[in-house]
């Protein structure tokens, strides 16, 4: 439970808000790389931490991320002409380069030097791991690039997609960190008792703080199995989770993988959920898996409509009460984070944490909140929040069955951090 004031701090990420200032200290995902198809392509609208921005790729292939509003009389640059190394407002022809300089102001008299005095807000971008990232904070505090292992493997070893969620970012993050809900919400075959998650209906959550966030384990004692089913995750500030996907029991044939999410605030009422997954095996992902974690996802997501899922709040996420009675726990399809989104959005657009009843399964969530609130204080006091130093490079999420008397913190330590120097065969 948080009081009203604390809740406000967590929820608001616009410019000048405490959490907004925290967010602006990290590299933030802007778009999937393919959204800016080629030089001089159509500009793309971006909402990020409460700011309205326009992304474009200039003639030389440089990525620009500018304020939506032309500094002149603030018409939208979305309609702009992306040409000759700059984005030109169609209203009066003012033109801006990727660095925000006004490089042409043809509607002013020839002798005018006004263009030298006008700048538009611009943010530096980088293209890494199939995602375009930006940094919106103080230039001298720019952190090293987000070299998560998944951003460093070849494209053939990774899938990354995204979907819009119509609710505050923090409740999406909390829903993702929560481990035990998988047993219930994601039980997509209520007749299949083989899954470990189904055989153990409770989990002990243990959180171990790190300097980038924390690693945490959910320990499920599985009956008929000599030990515990342990899933060890990472939470990387401010909005990233790494999730193991290696256990094959009840999941079909699949290489050992690590998956994860980034719940990126668009504004206080919407977030963009980036879902990525990659294989730990040296071989590329099979075509089938690449398709499953790529194009297939977009069967359910309207890319042209801001990556909104076709099943959404307006149609009760397509719930099928008959399927719910006979086949799956929810009656909601499992694709494209649909079940998670339905539940997380149903809490209200900005979840109010002053009325809840937290349980032991919520330990990791409580830790994340505490860490975020602390980070807000640290940044307000002029310090640096956790996770800006790149110490998360090479971390992995791992799941295994461990003997009952073995601590996962000891047994999995190496595996959880062994990704450094990872270089699979291409």
């Amino acid at each position, binding site marked *: 439970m948080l009081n009203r004031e604390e809740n406000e701090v967590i929820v608001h990420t616009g410019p000048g808000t405490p959490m907004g200032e925290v967010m602006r200290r990290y590299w933030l995902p802007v778009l999937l790389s393919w959204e800016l198809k080629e030089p001089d392509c159509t500009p793309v609208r971006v909402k990020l931490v409460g700011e309205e921005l326009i992304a474009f790729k200039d003639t030389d292939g440089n990525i620009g991320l500018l304020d939506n509003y032309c500094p002149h*009389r603030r*018409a939208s640059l979305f*309609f702009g002409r992306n040409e000759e190394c700059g984005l030109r407002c*169609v209203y009066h022809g003012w033109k801006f380069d990727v660095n925000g300089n006004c490089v042409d102001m043809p*509607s002013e*008299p020839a002798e005018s030097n006004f263009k030298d005095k006008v700048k538009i807000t611009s943010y530096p971008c980088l293209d890494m791991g199939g995602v375009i990232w930006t940094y919106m904070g103080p230039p001298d505090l720019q952190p090293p690039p987000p070299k998560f292992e998944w951003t460093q493997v070849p494209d053939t070893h990774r899938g990354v997609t995204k979907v819009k969620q119509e609710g505050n970012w923090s409740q999406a993050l909390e829903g993702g960190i929560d481990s035990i809900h998988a047993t219930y919400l994601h039980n997509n075959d209520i007749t299949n008792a083989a899954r470990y998650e189904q055989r153990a209906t409770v989990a002990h959550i243990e959180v171990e703080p790190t300097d980038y966030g924390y690693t945490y384990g959910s320990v499920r004692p599985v009956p008929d199995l000599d030990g515990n089913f342990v899933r060890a995750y990472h939470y990387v500030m401010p909005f990233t989770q790494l999730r193991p996907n290696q256990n094959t029991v009840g999941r079909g044939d699949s290489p050992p993988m690590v998956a994860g999410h980034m719940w990126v605030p668009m504004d206080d009422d919407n977030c963009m959920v980036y879902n990525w997954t990659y294989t730990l095996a040296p071989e590329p992902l099979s075509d089938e898996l690449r398709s499953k974690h790529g194009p297939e996802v977009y069967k359910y997501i309207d890319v042209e409509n801001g990556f909104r899922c076709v099943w959404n709040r307006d149609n009760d996420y397509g719930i099928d009460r008959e399927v719910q009675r006979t086949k799956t726990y929810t009656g909601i399809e499992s694709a494209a984070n649909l079940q998670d989104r339905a539940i997380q959005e149903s809490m209200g657009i900005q979840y109010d944490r002053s009325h809840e009843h937290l349980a032991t399964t919520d330990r990791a969530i409580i830790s994340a909140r505490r860490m975020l609130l602390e980070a807000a204080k640290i940044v307000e006091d002029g310090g640096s929040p956790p996770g800006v130093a790149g110490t998360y490079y090479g971390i992995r999420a791992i799941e295994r069955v461990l003997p009952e008397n073995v601590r996962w913190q000891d047994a999995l330590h190496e595996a959880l951090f062994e990704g450094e120097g990872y270089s699979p065969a291409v």
Partner: protein
Amino acid sequence: MLSKEENEILTRVGPGTVMGDMMREYWMPAMTSDELPAPDCDPVRLKLLGEDLIAFRATSGKIGVVGNSCPHRGASLFYGRNEEEGLRCVYHGWKFDTDGHCVDMPSEPPESRYLEKVKTVTYQVQERGGLIWVYMGARSEPPPLPSLIANMQAEGDYTISAYYSECNWMQSLEGDYDTSHVSWLHAGARQPEEIDEATDVTFERYALKTRWARHFVTDTEFGCTSGNNRPAEEDSTYWRIAHFLFPFYAMIPASFREKTFIAVVPMDDENCMRWHMSVRSSSEPARPGFGGPAIVDGLPTSFHLNASRNGTGWYDRFKIAGVRGNDYLIDREAQRAKVGGLGWSGLPGRGQDNGMTESMGVIYKREQEHLAVTDTGIIRMRRLLVKHALAFREDGTPPPAVDNPELYKVRSVSTLLPNDINGIEATQDLQWGAFSEEEQPAG
């Protein structure tokens, strides 16, 4: 740039606001006559200055504009029965005439005199030149209608276009008074060679040859006049003279005529109706957007009345096809091809102007902008509006031109003048109607 407080004054027009009260001193274009085509026709929802109104034409042909809410328990009179010289609420049968009197209250006992005590909100109406005008001010004797030339023509000698815009009225009007955007937004991909000199009576070719201009502005009795100039030939300068007239009129040198006006009438703080009227002699051939086809080359001209069919909602009148929700039907291929009127922005028709002015935000905040030489007229227009609205609030000082209809006979001008003279001064005779033979618009 305006402070937050000034911006609030400028943009808010509801009852009791500084700007809204001043605006209510003037007659306002509200509807076209053919929106109420016949006696006892369907009532029409009408938003004006933040008020919800219902317009109807009674059995006698007289027009009534009354409050949307029945004075009884607030049901909407939109559902009313328009019959026997009055609009009757279908909830309990109360009936109101065009002057707002309750003329029947059949749900009350026969001995009741209650109907004599009940009046509904009603506003004065005049109909002229195809337009229905409404007066919402406090004067019991309203001022005269403004003598706008295009609105004083015989049937068939004028063209009215209207289109709705989903943003505050002021940013829409600013877009009109900003005549410099024409060289860019509307013609950035057009070349001066495309213009046939023989028919180029407004010297458009010079606006394409030189796409910047020097800007001047001067106060007038009706508001202000702006002039911008740029080089024409060696011994001449091309001048464009535009006017802002209180409270929401712009007269700009349009591409083929001067006897024209634009009125940007606030529906509420977040929506406005744009009226374009001009003179068109019946012998003149029709053109796209001016009595011509609504669709040209498969694209809506989005200008003429027939471009879209009106619905019955508050914001369903005179909608153009390209709206915020569909990015104004932007054609990126055309934008890349960079040819013709569509080739600069890729935005068809009126989506060009609406696309720009609506994209600034629903109520444009003027705290963060960077005004340039091209905005000289806009700056003056804002200042005058705020100044006179505050003066009216302060001591009732009548705002500009409200009692002087003749001032609205002024015209915009585009002409060539010798170099180095004050074009605003030098074109006074043209502004007040003395066209020479060769400068007379074609037709």
